[in-house]
């Protein structure tokens, strides 16, 4: 008798879970930027115990690059070996960015990911690592930069796993931060209308042209400096919640809170 009770209860709860899976929660579509922009993309894995740096696994960089391509942005990868000497020479981001400019020909923007890893301690059967990430977007023309610095805690299964494995384990978090940083940087730039979007990226609601930026990671500190000066083509970058042309409703206004875009623009 009790078996039946339990099985019924379980089936009921499973049904609830199944309904949730079946689509009660729709994913927020990523913005599709209309401008033909190319990001020069560079990655480095800095060793905390020495001054050496190494490249990041192709599978991880491919996954991170997809954050750009799924936003209709082009990727111009900069090979680690092409810039290895410059990266080894200095560790501060500003000078490294300047060194990257020569390899970023044809790109309007640079997306530079500096990742370092550090073993923390054994923890309840796992191996706890810190993955420290410093993401920087650099505008080749205006020399604006936007930066997001964060740490992802990772618990690896095995003692033989190393910093590369920790980065692989952190890539979903890095993707989210990267997407948020790009959207913050691109705030105010035009996006494709819903009709122009590929089906997979359309919003669930037909009138929703562009979603609000992913709320997830609290960013972001950046360099400069002056208030932005919106143009006719580029609406006020402090606009909340969405950063885009609202084709059905006209420009949206206001929004007092400080956003990453407020900070970076110069």
């Amino acid at each position: 008798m009790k078996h039946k009770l339990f099985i019924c209860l379980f089936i009921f709860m499973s049904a609830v879970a199944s309904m949730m899976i079946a689509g009660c929660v729709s994913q927020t579509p990523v913005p599709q930027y209309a401008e033909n922009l190319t990001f020069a993309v560079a990655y480095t894995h800095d060793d905390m115990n020495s001054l050496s740096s190494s490249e990041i696994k192709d599978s991880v960089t491919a996954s991170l690059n997809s954050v750009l391509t799924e936003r209709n942005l082009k990727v111009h990868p900069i090979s680690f070996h092409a810039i290895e000497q410059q990266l080894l020479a200095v560790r501060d981001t500003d000078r490294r960015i300047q060194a990257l400019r020569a390899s970023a020909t044809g790109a309007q923007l640079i997306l530079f990911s500096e990742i370092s890893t550090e073993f923390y301690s054994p923890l309840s059967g796992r191996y706890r690592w810190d993955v420290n990430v410093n993401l920087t977007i650099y505008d080749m023309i205006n020399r604006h930069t936007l930066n997001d610095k964060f740490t992802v805690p990772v618990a690896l299964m095995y003692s033989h796993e190393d910093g590369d494995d920790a980065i692989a384990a952190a890539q979903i978090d890095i993707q989210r931060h990267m997407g948020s940083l790009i959207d913050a940087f691109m705030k105010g730039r035009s996006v494709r209308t819903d009709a122009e979007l590929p089906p997979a990226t359309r919003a669930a609601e037909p009138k929703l042209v562009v979603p609000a930026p992913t709320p997830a990671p609290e960013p972001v500190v950046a360099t400069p400096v002056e208030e932005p000066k919106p143009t006719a083509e580029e609406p006020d970058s402090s606009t909340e919640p969405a950063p885009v042309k609202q084709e059905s409703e006209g420009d949206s206004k206001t929004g007092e809170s400080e956003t990453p875009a407020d900070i970076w623009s110069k």
Partner: protein
Amino acid sequence: MYLQTRHILALLTLMAVVFMAWLSPQNAQADEDRFSAGGYFRISARPDFQGGWSKLGLWNISGRLMNETQWAALDMRLQLIKQTPGTNEVWTSLHAKIEGGTAHGADLLNGTLGDFSLTQLYVKAGNVLIQDVVWQVGTLDYYFGDLGLYDMKFAEIFYDTVGMSATWNHKYADLLVGIGDSGYLKHSNGYSPVLTFGLATRIKPTDGFEFGVGAELGYEPSVEGSSNAPHQTRFDSASGVTYESYVRKEVLQDFVEKLSNESLLETLYPRPSATSALSYKIVGYLGFGKLGALKWNNLFFNFLRQHPEQYYYETFNNNEKRIYIKDWTDERYQFNIGDEMNLAIVENRFDLTWAALFGYHYDKDDKISASERNRMIWSIVARGQVYITPTVHILVETSFAQEKSLNGNLWRKSAGSMWNNDGGIASARGLEYGDLDKRNTWQGKIGFVLNPGGAGIFARPSLRLLYGTQYSNMHNAFVNSNVETQSQSNEFYGADFSSIPDRHWHHVISIEAEAWF
């Protein structure tokens, strides 16, 4: 009560020190980088309609899933002198770990801080005296790895040791050497120093293969006149006291009954003989993987001799005596081996992990009583996880475990066993228990898992909705509040013992979460 207060005070003191350092205004910016914290927790709600206490089975031999309850750990680190990349400058860090097995509203202890303790506290320092060597002073716990499905660490040393260790790290090998004292954890209130020496090495010849060995030796010296140092109360053959007297806790009774006059007790009762005690543990590890679908395979084993017990008290006819038992408890051995294999059957769609263990535990002093010191155990667990989406998974796990008592019956197969088990008992006065010398346990678990962190059997955080069922040939093979004793039986069933239902199946639903952070 005293112990609880002490734990709370220790916890509060530690938290105060850490946060004062953290909040120090003159170093606020620097300290933000220097202090960090990691941790782990699991919490579950498992309503049990069969009288159980929220665990599917008795212990982890059937896999840890649904057989463990709450746990929370906070692992803090303060980098007193940060490591400078590319230099051989001295660096040092302070580590403290607080953990315990309860949470508010989730178990009988209701999250009381008295059940948390400071299980690790140590300082690490690098590049002191010898380059590339890390010194550790404080708790020294070290292990090669963990059988994740069981949550067991067979290849672990220095678990109860406080002292100093040095670790040399190299690309192809690590070497750890340590020395310390294990007396407080082995003996607690009966503290006596147990000098512990150990070493471990891990060899990493290639990327997909490594192995390691380690050992620790505990030596408790004889200390004349110290009531906590190892002693044995030795009785001659004429005294009537045997090992069986100790098992039955009737040493004093047997001794007195042999005396012609009880008043001679104080005169003739033997003085404790000082002696020394020895224990050891040898551990091994073999790991390989990165071979197609095989992500990694871990094999761990240990062989150990447990540290002997100290003493206990007996009372007979208003006479109380302390009985030292080193010689009766110093030949307890264990051999344990376990393997776990993690397979990606269909990449990002279906992973499978299976594990197995075998253990042979024997007490050379005890040839007469049934106990967990004399048993052979083995089990196998397999867990599959299907990834419907990167974050929504279906989990299926099954296990079979067998425990065999080497000295007679140890478990009850029915509620009535306590009244009708004479046929299975060698001694009418009970050196056995129940009417089973073999306990078989099967478990099955199925449910949904929400993993915000993506695919992977061991990806966390993990939010689970599970149903688990168990069949055991033992009656009530789970922690419970069901009728177990004669008085309870009288209260609920009167004299009709046969109406007490046998309970071999157990069902539990679990809503639970687990995370490392």
